[in-house]
Structures are given as structure tokens and as C-alpha cells.
């Protein structure tokens, strides 16, 4: 039985194209998003838009470690050979290794399983409760570099679906 489409044909085509592109897009994002996030943190840059200092300072780079933490680093009182720079939230590597990504319905979900993530991202770490953002919250964005990569993945997925 023929189907009669009475709506806007352009919109219909765009919608079906988006639906076809989605699986490719999600698969692609899942493949690179962890590397992008960890890569950004490792060079001392927050993956979150303006997330380097308390999420509102407009800085991309993470705020410097506290003087007391730097003293611990200098005196080699920590469990690894941690250095002062970059400020990469990496001591044992457990936090960054705990990043997970999964395709879930109409989204790619990304989260840290290590409990320290909550302190860095929301509650504040150390005595001075410094927030160094790791992941965007609802309504927030990734930094421009990661956004650019996501947009490219979307364009590629659409091109492959035409």
C-alpha cells in the first residue's frame, strides 16, 4: 500500500538522514571521546568550557596546585613521582583510567567511576576546595577543541549516510 507523505519533504529527508547518521555518529564519538577528555586533562586543560578554575573564571588551564600540595610534591611525600606541572590531576592514574563511555539510547554517556572525580568536578578538592572540571554537567559544553571534534564526527556520519 503506498504511503502518502503530506508534510514538508525537505524536513522528512533531513529527519531520516539524521536517524541514519546517528549510529555512525555515536560509534565514532564513543571511540574518541575518552582519548580527547583524558588527553585534555593530561596537558592541564579542562575538557569543560571555561572549566579550569571553578568553572566560571573563563580559564581553560587548570588552576595551579596549592602551596601545601606543591611542598608535598617537592619533598617526594607522595606515592608516585608526581611533578608540579602540568596540573593534570594524575597521581597514580587511577582517576583518569576510570573514565568510561557507553552508547545509551540517543546519547553517548561518559563518566568516571573513581570517587575522586566528584571532588574535582563538583565538591572541590583539598582544604581550599578547588574545583577543576573534568566533565560538563547538564547544559554545559565541552571545550572548543572537543566540540570541534564532535562536530566533525557528526559531519562525517552525515556524509557517509547520504
Amino acid at each position, binding site marked *: 500500500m503506498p504511503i502518502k507523505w503530506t508534510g514538508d519533504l*525537505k524536513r522528512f529527508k533531513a529527519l531520516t538522514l539524521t536517524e541514519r547518521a546517528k549510529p555512525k555518529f555515536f560509534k565514532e564519538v564513543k571511540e574518541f571521546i575518552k582519548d580527547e577528555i583524558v588527553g585534555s586533562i593530561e*596537558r*592541564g*586543560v579542562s575538557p569543560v*568550557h571555561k572549566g579550569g578554575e571553578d568553572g566560571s573564571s*573563563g*580559564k*581553560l*588551564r587548570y588552576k*595551579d596546585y596549592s602551596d601545601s600540595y606543591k611542598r608535598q610534591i617537592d619533598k617526594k611525600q607522595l606515592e608516585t*613521582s*608526581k*611533578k*608540579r*606541572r*602540568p*596540573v593534570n590531576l594524575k597521581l597514580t592514574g587511577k582517576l583518569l583510567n576510570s573514565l568510561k563511555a557507553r552508547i545509551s539510547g540517543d546519547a553517548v554517556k561518559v563518566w568516571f567511576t573513581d570517587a575522586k572525580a566528584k571532588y574535582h568536578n563538583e565538591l572541590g578538592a583539598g582544604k581550599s576546595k578547588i574545583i577543576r572540571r573534568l566533565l560538563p554537567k547538564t547544559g554545559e559544553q565541552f*571545550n*572548543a*577543541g572537543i*566540540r*570541534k571534534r564532535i*562536530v*566533525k564526527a557528526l559531519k562525517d556520519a552525515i556524509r557517509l549516510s547520504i
Partner: protein
Amino acid sequence: MPKSNRKEVKIEIAEFVEDTILEYLSRGESPVAGERKVFKSLSKEYKKIKSKVSGSSKPNMELFGDMLDDFESKADTGSSITFGLLKDASEKSKLKAENHNKWTSRALKTKVPKRRFIPKGEQGLRKEIMRDIEDIIESYVPEENDAD
């Protein structure tokens, strides 16, 4: 491009440029067109010092990190963005950047090797960065069909 998008695209580009330059520097590379891509490696003596302090023996422009902490990029008035060590940067950071970038005759006289990360005069950013900037601008330009 609609006026309403202009400010937004400038902010997007400013943040992208800042992030990209920092990324190049973290790899020990220059983001500036016409400059040697990989920075000259550090001297043996300085490598030892830097490795002890910062944990990296790469020429990533980060010993104590204060210079790069002061590096920023901002959307300007008109159709431009500004990046570098801007008015809020400390004098020390500005001097370090001047010496590394070799912008002035005073900087040329210092022994600091040239590792330029901010373009001088007519110089621009590397073409791959410029291409990405064009992509960002393009993504803000409405397609003809959007008006339908």
C-alpha cells in the same frame, strides 16, 4: 553571517585558538606558520633542571607554568580576536613570552632559543589551524535551505 551569530562565532574561535595553541605547545610544537614545526630540543643541562621541576624534558614552554597560565584568547570588537599575554598577564610572563618569541631586539640579544608560539606581524597560524577556524565559521553560516 547574521549579526547575532558573529559574537558567538568569535568566542568559539577564541576558545578554539587558545586550546589549540596550548595543545601544540604541550607537544613541543609551534602553532605559527612559517616557523619550524618541532621546537628545538632543550640543552642537556636545562633538560635536567626542567625534568626535575616539571616532570617533562620536552620543550613544552612549561617549567613553573606561570607564563602559559597567563596566556589567553579573547573575542575582540569588530571582526577580530586577540590572543597572547594580554593586559592581565604579569610582567614576568610577558617578558618570558617576548624572549621565547623573539619579537624585539632586546629578546634577540638573550640566550633563550627562539620558540615562537604567537605570530609576529603578518605571520599567521599554521594552515591546519586556519582550516579548522574556517570550518567553525562555516558551521555558523546558515545554509540556503535553512530559510525555507
